[in-house]
């Protein structure tokens, strides 16, 4: 085994915790845009670090431009990170060669948002599901087909759907096929990128329940990326909040939702519409202004341009992640 791939972490994690399944350290990604005469860099993610224990569901919330999707894709290197490490089961994915990567990321799979774009329209459902089995020599031919049928029933579809094409299914059913495809390679860790955002309200709950059922049955861990605070609250054990490429706050679900300590998390929860018409509507105190462009993010704390508490110091230093209570961290210098 390559030396650089071996895990060097014993000191970082508290000794009481189980060995982390996934550890992301100082992940960075910047994109170059424009032509060679007018080149600019979009800092999509900066210095994102977190770790996850086996069997855990971490919700990653943020608005557009927060870089939450980029984090998911950088972990499996669908997008090449420009810096940082991703340790999965002790192996550094960020340092693996392309060849090693192919088998390394087998247990680490993605479910996409768009149920229309996520399945090859020219392949039958059976082949879509069996593709991963063929690639990794798990099963072939009749055996693969049988397993694909089994997986179809696992995700709430029927065995005889196997010879149909994706366009014959509704959005929710396609999402189920996408989930079966991932289960076919014995995924242990699933990155669910907005798994229900494109679905109808009455279908969302079905798919969320399915994900929860499968998580228990197959002992999965999940990184659930979503802009929907309700979905994340329901499905997650821990929650991380991102803004403009940086982590703002991370903690257990109750830490973040019931006791948010970062002003951005507070504003975000405040902005969430509440299905209670009798709650008095506050027309003041809503977070004003727009999300700044990631091409030219504010200096210091990226949130300071919209932050009600911002002061001069906020422009000077990038606030480090500080522990508020065990396991609950925030990136804000204000108390």
């Amino acid at each position, binding site marked *: 085994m390559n030396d650089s791939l071996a895990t060097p972490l014993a000191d970082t994690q508290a000794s009481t915790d189980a060995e982390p399944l996934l550890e992301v350290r100082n992940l960075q990604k910047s994109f170059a845009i424009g032509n060679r005469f007018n080149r600019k860099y979009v800092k999509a993610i900066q210095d994102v670090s977190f770790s996850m224990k086996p069997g855990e569901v971490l919700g990653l919330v943020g*608005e*557009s431009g927060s870089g939450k999707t980029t984090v998911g894709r950088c972990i499996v290197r669908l997008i090449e990170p420009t810096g940082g490490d991703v340790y999965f089961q002790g192996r550094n994915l960020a340092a693996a060669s392309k060849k090693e990567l192919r088998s390394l990321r087998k247990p680490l799979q993605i479910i996409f948002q768009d149920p229309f774009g996520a399945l090859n329209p020219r392949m039958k459902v059976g082949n879509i599901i069996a593709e991963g089995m063929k690639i990794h020599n798990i099963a072939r031919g009749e055996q693969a087909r049988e397993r694909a049928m089994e997986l179809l029933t696992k995700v709430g579809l029927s065995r005889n759907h196997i010879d149909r094409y994706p366009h014959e299914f*509704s959005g*929710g*059913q396609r999402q189920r096929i996408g989930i079966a495809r991932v289960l076919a390679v014995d995924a242990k860790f699933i990155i669910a990128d907005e798994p229900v955002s494109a679905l*109808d*309200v*009455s*279908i*969302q*709950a*079905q798919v*969320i*329940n399915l994900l*929860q*059922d499968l998580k*228990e049955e197959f002992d999965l861990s999940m990184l659930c990326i979503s*802009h*929907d*605070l*309700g*979905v994340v*609250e*329901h*499905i997650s054990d821990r929650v991380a909040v991102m803004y403009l490429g940086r982590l703002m706050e991370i903690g257990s679900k109750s830490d973040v*939702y019931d006791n948010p300590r970062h002003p951005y998390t507070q*504003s*975000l929860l*405040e*902005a*969430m*519409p*509440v*299905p*209670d*018409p*009798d*709650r008095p*509507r506050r*027309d003041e105190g*809503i*977070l*004003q202004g*727009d*999300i700044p462009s990631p091409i030219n993010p504010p200096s210091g704390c990226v949130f300071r341009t919209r932050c009600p508490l911002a002061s001069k110091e906020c422009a000077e230093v990038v606030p480090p992640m500080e522990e508020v209570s065990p396991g609950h961290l925030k990136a804000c210098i204000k108390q």
Partner: protein
Amino acid sequence: MSDTRALLDVKGLQVHFDTPDGVVKAVNDVDFEVKRGETLAVVGESGSGKSVTSLAIMRLISGRNAGGKILFEGKNLLDKSMDEMRGIRGNDISMIFQEPMTSLNPVYTVGWQIIEAITTHLDYTHKQAYERAVESLDLVGIPEPRARMSNYPHQLSGGMRQRVMIAMALSTEPKLLIADEPTTALDVTIQAQILQLMRRLQREMGMSIIFITHDLAVVAEMAHRVVVMYSGNVVEEAPVSELFKRPRMPYTIGLMRSMPGRYGYKTAKNRLEIIPGNVPNPLQLPSGCAFHPRCKFMKPGVCTTEAPKLEPIEDDRLIRCFRWEDVQEQVQQETTRRLA
């Protein structure tokens, strides 16, 4: 003219589309009215017919009008000529859409587009229209409105574009604003700003709003009254706090209970309560009540054969369900059990 009469009264509206695979009854039987100065929320999922209804009110739909009336200030819009409709659109009734990028023409400045909207309907000189446009940009909370007049849509953020759309829609002081999912494409914090803006503008200008959305939480934020649609039908109508306190139609109950987060119902093992099955294919609508295949209160022989009618029940509420009384009883029992 008394002001108590509804501003807009939609009666038995039906819109059909002829497709190679058969007739799609996008709007089957829709009744509702919008009073002056009120916000009526129309809630539904894809295929519920909520957007088709709003486009039918504007006469912007290619589908076949299969029946019904749309009375605006007592006059049937379906009888109007296209010329007369052009005088109403953008003047008496304005509309804003979900996607603020595609609703604005990318090759013209923001100011040009608002001025165009104003001079089409009002007898203003260019200078007056310009001032009016600046005023309306200011009204929707756009900072430095004069400078923004010469901006192109792509120079503005999504939230700002939606504000421009609202400014344009309101520049002619319409009596009715139809907002079709106006915040769905926006981020949560921007959505909050736009919802707040629309509440304020309604207070100040007194227009009526039809607010079309799939999001119940947004309904609670915005509406005075709510119409719930499913498969081209209105299935329930109620004042907003009544609807949220005591949803009656099984579909509405299902929608509220399946909300993820802290407001939905959880079953054992922290699962969400769900509405099973899928939204029906509009080409093959189920017999009887369109919701019956997914309804846990369904009674064979009753719900499966005959289509229920939209009927008034106590205090200003309408419902389309044969079994709402049984449902009510059952829900009451469940609630007592849960609270016990």
